[in-house]
């Protein structure tokens, strides 16, 4: 019988055939943690495990993205603690401004097809965009990997999402990610992997958008079978292909011919409706960024809508590039100049306002259109503020008029 991609990746790691449902102990290829949680993981290693060193320094990678550069003396001290630990243990560290961990690990070729990549961050499902098994864990789990090099995992069953046709103009990967959430619901893939089929044509950035949001449906991982751009940019192991007779717990079919722009309304990621339902609604802030939609292509799409125009004086638009490389690309073809000329502001690459800590925290009753991945109550600031999740195209079109606007209507 065939295997899912998840079963193949675990079988390869263990050197024997494994099946969904088994609890296995694996040595992950990469273990990522960022500035927000690494200081606490160091505490668990030192205080609870009583160790000062990690088992495999090469397995680890640190990134500074959650509050970077530091916003307070406390965060600055914590970052120095991580820098000193990294230097002492010879661990790779990506400094403030380099970008969001999930973007940087892909750009640097640290996340590779067929790898098991675990991160102290729920959006570690993002690594499925390159054909890795990516999954998030908490601090103690990660500290245990630092100490032992290994962790236990239950090999998850897989839900297949089968996509047919191509996007209509003005509709993109974010609309698809939201539509999948609408169909599967916020807990519809709990403890499972989502495999996205029918997307050989989809470029890397779109795959990253989809996989970053797999966790929002409860999934342990989200994987797009490596094809197209992934095969051109990465070395894909010969065993990493889809078996026709692999077993899935469920198949969800989505035809892109029928897909309109989508929007997630407060306060849950699966409260998704067609954009037309809330068209014309006023808001105060646009946040274009995050591991879901902060890449060059997302900024380019927004710029193509804002070219030669001005955003409404009723709203503010904050653009936070996902990484320094994405920012650099946007400076080289006029994308950034277009956004700034239209009235947007650009922040340091990183997670930015996504979890309400800096660079765009919301005040009482503020309404934000975000290209991010979570609209939980109070996530970006005051608990009376609200977040609507949209695509970069919807964000840009809405910026022009200061009300929610369908980009396909422009």
């Amino acid at each position, binding site marked *: 019988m065939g295997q899912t991609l998840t079963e193949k990746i675990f079988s390869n790691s263990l050197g024997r055939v494994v099946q969904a449902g088994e609890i296995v102990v694996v040595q992950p290829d990469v273990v990522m943690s960022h500035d927000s949680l690494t200081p606490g993981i160091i505490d668990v290693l030192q205080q609870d495990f009583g160790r000062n060193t990690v088992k495999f320094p090469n397995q680890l990678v640190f990134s500074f993205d959650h*509050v970077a550069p530091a916003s307070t003396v*406390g965060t600055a001290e914590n970052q120095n603690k991580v820098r000193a630990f990294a230097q002492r243990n010879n661990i790779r560290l990506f400094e403030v401004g380099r970008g969001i961990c999930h973007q940087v690990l892909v750009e640097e070729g640290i996340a590779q097809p067929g790898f098991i990549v675990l991160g102290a961050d729920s959006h570690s499902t993002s690594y499925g965009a390159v054909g890795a098994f990516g999954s998030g864990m*908490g601090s*103690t789990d990660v500290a245990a990997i630092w100490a032992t090099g290994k962790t236990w995992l239950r090999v998850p069953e897989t839900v297949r999402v089968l996509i047919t046709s191509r996007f209509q103009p003005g509709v993109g990967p974010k609309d698809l990610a939201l539509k999948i959430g609408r169909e599967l619901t916020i807990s519809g893939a709990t403890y499972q992997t989502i495999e996205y089929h029918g997307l050989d044509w989809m470029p890397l950035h779109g795959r990253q958008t989809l996989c970053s949001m797999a966790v929002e449906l409860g999934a342990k991982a989200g994987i797009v079978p490596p094809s197209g751009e992934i095969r051109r940019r990465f070395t894909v192991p010969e065993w990493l292909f889809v078996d026709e007779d692999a077993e899935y717990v469920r198949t969800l079919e989505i035809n892109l011919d029928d897909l309109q722009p989508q929007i997630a309304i407060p306060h849950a990621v699966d409260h998704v409706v067609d954009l037309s339902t809330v068209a014309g609604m006023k808001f105060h802030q646009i946040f274009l960024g995050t591991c879901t939609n902060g890449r060059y292509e997302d900024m380019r799409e927004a710029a193509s809508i804002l070219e030669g125009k001005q955003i409404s004086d009723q709203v503010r638009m904050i653009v936070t590039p996902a990484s320094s490389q994405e920012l650099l690309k946007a400076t080289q073809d006029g994308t950034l100049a277009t956004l700034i000329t239209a009235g947007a502001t650009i922040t340091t690459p990183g997670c930015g306002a996504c979890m*309400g800590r800096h660079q765009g925290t919301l005040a009482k009753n503020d309404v934000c259109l975000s290209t991010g991945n979570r609209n939980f109550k109070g996530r970006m600031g005051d608990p009376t503020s609200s977040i609507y999740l949209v695509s970069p195209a919807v964000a840009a079109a809405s910026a022009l008029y200061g009300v929610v606007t369908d980009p396909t209507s422009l």
Partner: protein
Amino acid sequence: MSIIWKFGNDVDTDQIVPGRYAPYMRPNEDVGKAAFIEAHPEFNKLAEPGDIIVAGENFGCGSSREYAVLALKRRQIGAIIAKSFARIFYRNAINLGLILIEAPQVVDELSDHDLCTLDLDENRLEVGNHIHRLPEISPFAREIVSAGGLVAYIQTNSRLPGE
């Protein structure tokens, strides 16, 4: 006697502890004081050691932030009884030795502010003169929780769970 604090479905980690209250942001404060600080101020002020959280589906969805579990642990919550739990939250809770009980049949019969007595050895919850049978915690999880969490498990057994 303990008090039941009843929540709905999809209680996310931003509700349990908003990111702005993370230990990273406020290194000198007890994260326990931030438990449900904005989403449920009454719980935040009044929850006592031993109190029980009862919730619907998908409790703890969202972020990997272990400090959401840590905050409830610091408040010495006796157990969380829910219809289901989000994956990362479930692991974090086992790792820190916080008791989670998946009991879909029982949840609808329990009400906010009910007084109760939880007996984990006998898997039962007494509310007034009604006794609710609770499902057994999975042996795998119970082994880790009984050891005192993941670190203690590894230190005691010199191996990982499942190894």
